[in-house]
């Protein structure tokens, strides 16, 4: 049963994306620069096609195939749909801004597709090897994408910094994986899970492995104290790449976290729950407090991303004891992916006579010059702050509900207080857009598609606060297979 049509069907979305990446790679060689639009369109269609396939192939029950390397279950399928869909959205946002940076090249789109393939493998990893391969495929593609803006010093610095620190984290992660392998004698998550259930804390190798893996994942998620790269990399990266870094790459890291910590080390939950709670507290403090001092909007959102990881980790810490299980963190992460993609997407779409405007002050008076864009940003800022009636509030509500249910009321209270601290800097952006006099001439790209998709994306964040039912049900459905 190792290899056959059912197995191929399960990995069809991955095969499709990788196959199309190869095809586009070849096709792009024959295109003139003026025809690059074809590559762009094909990339979006590939991502959307992959999302459709993943949605169509959602399995009724969990399967582990291809010599246990590949888990095909509801969670992975749902996360892949979001990953592919939101990457497509990110590519749509990126068009004009890539052209401005002279990055509208075939290689970039190939790298996007390969990074996405890596993300998909992370969501489906059934063995440690697959987990590591998926992670590295994504990371290497991202490093290159950041550094593609060759003439920009911040981008080069950001790419290099991400590469060096990312390699260090990968090393720690890999070391953790090797300890897990040493402890259990197997690369398969299922075997490791059994071993963890029988041995648990009595096996020091397993405990050490858990800690190292947790550190590696915390780095990829950008949780304090492993967050140092986040502001510099987000800030230095070309705007279009930041969209992917902040949204789908983060979701993929979360998917990997679910695979390793829940599927593999679920029995070690009492241990990593404490780690998650500690990281959550630190992330909330550092993310929210440092964000207040930022004058650059990308850095501000980078620190806000760190704070959001804090909320996510509250959910992870509480999830094993909550009645809805991992629904709350999954919901939170998907909601953040929507908000992050739209937020950074808007920054990528806005420009100041061809130059990216990245200071918060560049947005002064936006509500008078471009009221619709300002309104979209308003929705996103209040959503990130967790103010009803936006989706950001609903996501936080479920996180706090899980925390209270898990008897972590202290953590919940700390979280809500930090949400208030966070509200301050989001309000500052709103203040700049709505209360200050118009200053610099920031304009959105003349790209109807990107603006339309951005509007849909931001309005979806609002609508999910008014009608969260469908997304909540989807997340519940996704975690029921665990």
């Amino acid at each position: 049963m190792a290899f056959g049509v059912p197995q191929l069907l399960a990995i069809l979305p991955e095969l499709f994306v990788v196959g199309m990446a190869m095809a586009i790679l070849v096709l792009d060689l024959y295109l003139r620069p003026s025809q690059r639009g074809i590559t762009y369109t094909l990339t979006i269609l590939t991502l959307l096609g992959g999302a459709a396939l993943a949605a169509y192939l959602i399995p009724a029950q969990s399967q582990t195939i291809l010599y246990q390397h590949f888990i095909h279950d509801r969670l992975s399928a749902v996360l892949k749909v979001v990953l592919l869909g939101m990457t497509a959205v990110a590519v749509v946002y990126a068009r004009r801004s890539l052209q401005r940076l002279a990055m509208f090249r075939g290689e970039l789109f190939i790298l996007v597709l390969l990074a996405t393939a890596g993300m998909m493998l992370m969501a489906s990893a059934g063995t440690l090897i697959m987990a590591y391969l998926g992670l590295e495929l994504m990371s290497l593609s991202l490093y290159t994408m950041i550094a593609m803006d060759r003439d920009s010093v911040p981008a080069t610095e950001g790419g290099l910094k991400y590469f060096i620190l990312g390699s260090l984290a990968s090393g720690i992660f890999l070391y953790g994986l090797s300890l897990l392998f040493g402890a259990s004698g197997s690369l398969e998550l299922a075997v490791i899970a059994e071993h963890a259930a029988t041995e648990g804390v009595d096996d020091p190798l397993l405990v050490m492995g858990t800690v190292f893996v947790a550190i590696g994942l915390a780095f990829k998620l950008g949780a304090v104290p492993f967050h140092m790269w986040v502001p510099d990399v987000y800030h230095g990266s070309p705007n279009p790449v930041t969209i992917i870094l902040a949204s789908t790459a983060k979701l993929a890291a979360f998917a990997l976290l679910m695979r390793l910590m829940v599927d593999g080390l679920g029995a070690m939950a009492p241990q990593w729950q404490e780690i998650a709670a500690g990281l959550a507290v630190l992330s909330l403090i550092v993310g929210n407090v440092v964000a207040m001092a930022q004058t650059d909007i990308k850095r501000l959102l980078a620190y806000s991303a760190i704070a959001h990881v804090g909320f996510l980790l509250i959910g992870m810490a509480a999830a094993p004891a909550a009645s809805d299980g991992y629904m709350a963190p999954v919901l939170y992460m998907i909601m953040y992916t929507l908000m992050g993609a739209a937020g950074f997407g808007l920054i990528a779409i806005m420009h100041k006579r061809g130059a990216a405007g990245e200071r918060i002050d560049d947005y002064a008076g936006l509500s008078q010059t471009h009221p619709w864009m300002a309104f979209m940003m308003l929705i996103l800022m209040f959503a990130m702050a967790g103010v009803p009636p936006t989706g950001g509030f609903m996501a936080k509500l479920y996180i706090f509900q899980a925390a209270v249910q898990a008897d972590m009321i202290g953590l919940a209270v700390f979280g809500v207080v930090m949400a208030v601290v966070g509200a301050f800097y989001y309000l500052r952006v709103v203040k700049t857009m709505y209360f200050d006099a118009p200053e610099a001439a920031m304009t959105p790209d003349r790209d109807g598609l990107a603006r339309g998709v951005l509007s849909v994306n931001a309005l979806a964040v609002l609508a999910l606060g008014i009608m969260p039912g469908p997304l909540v049900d989807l997340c519940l459905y996704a975690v029921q297979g665990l």
Partner: protein
Amino acid sequence: MEQLPLLSLSIWLPILGGVLVLALGPGRDDMARWLALVVSGAVFVVTCLLLVGFDTGTAGIQFGESRPWITSLDIHYKLGVDGISVLLVLLTSLSTVVAVAASWEAIQTRVPMYMAAFLIMEGFMIGVFSALDAVLFYVFWEAMLIPMFLIIGIWGGTNRIYATIKFFLYTFFGSVLMLVALVYLYTQAGTFDILELHDVQLSLGEQVWIFLAFLIAFAVKVPMWPVHTWLPDAHVEAPTAGSVILAAIMLKMGGYGFVRFSLPITPDASHELAWLVIALSLIAVVYIGLVALVQEDMKKLIAYSSIAHMGFVTLGYFMFNPQGIAGGLIQMISHGFVSAALFLCVGVMYDRLHTRLISDYGGVVNVMPVFAALFMLFGMANAGLPGTSGFVGEFMVILGAFKVEPWFGVIAATTLVLGAAYTLWLYKRVIFGRITSEHVANDMPPMSRREKWVFAPLAALVLIMGIWPAPFLEIMDSSVLNLVEQVNQSKL
């Protein structure tokens, strides 16, 4: 007629109307004004229908609506009003009409957005008073911060940005702790239905924590001393209509929260910690009354007087007897009329001279006699003169307080002296005397017809409620008795 979902209508009509006004886009100022007036007028009519169909014989929920909203947490879109909330809904819709009419000429920039903000906020506020699901309540409660944040921040005075951010963060901080309390209640009761939460059994320890979380949320909103400092700033910087809504409605939400959540859900903790609330209320009445006396800015003076009057409301609630609670509620309604009218009075003068400092005025009666008479009426109501609405509530609360502990009554009664002192002194300095400057002589034309119409309903209501408060009391009577029974029944 019976089938019409009046509450949903009065929530969504203004919100949709607001979106429509917003969609008019910049430039169509007059159309935005008229549309806003028509929509808010229509909402007022709808809420009047609530009153017409209201059955005063029962403490139960009327005009109830319920449908599942978020099934996984058993959250419902559940609405309904009782004798307490129906009056507040009506107060909201009336105040919004007044606010729209009062901003007719004072607001000249970004008019559609301004009007839309008020309409959308009206929908949220009515939602707060009619929500019977805790999450729905919380959503409305928080959502209304957004339009108010923009109103103060865009159309406010010179120091508006500091004021509006302070306002937002203060109230946001207060409410998030309430969210944790609500979620905790959910884990205990398995429901967010407010009426079912009234019956959930809680130990004293749990009740105390929940009570404190609620207290922070509602005390910030009311606002009670010492978390009142956002209010003077917000009032001073807000445009006139913003102050009207702040004073008339937003403060009432805190008071409403006490009767809807704190008293019935945590009755034992309410008794246990009544001393705290009573102490804070009396401090507000006396100390803030003294603070009001020395203000040089008219809006600030009225803002402090609002805090003192709201101290009366909370004092009344924590007497746990029908006189105290009904008195507190009457005081809330009356204060809604009176403080709104006083802010409008300041607005009328500010529109003419563009200053709020008392020292810039003097002898206004010589140039604006009708205005002086109206200001006199509302000033008297603010001081609690018999025959005005201000007297009824204060009298009932003092009566309720005397029943519990005479000293509370005695201290509370000082408000009659202090209120008269700061109001009359303000009145004397601004209205009477000789004309102090040529600005007053030349730049203060008599009130326009529109301005008079804005004041007319408020003046009428202040007098009606003062002379014949029975209908108001009758509407809330059964609900108040029911509440008194709930709060005096131990859950232990």
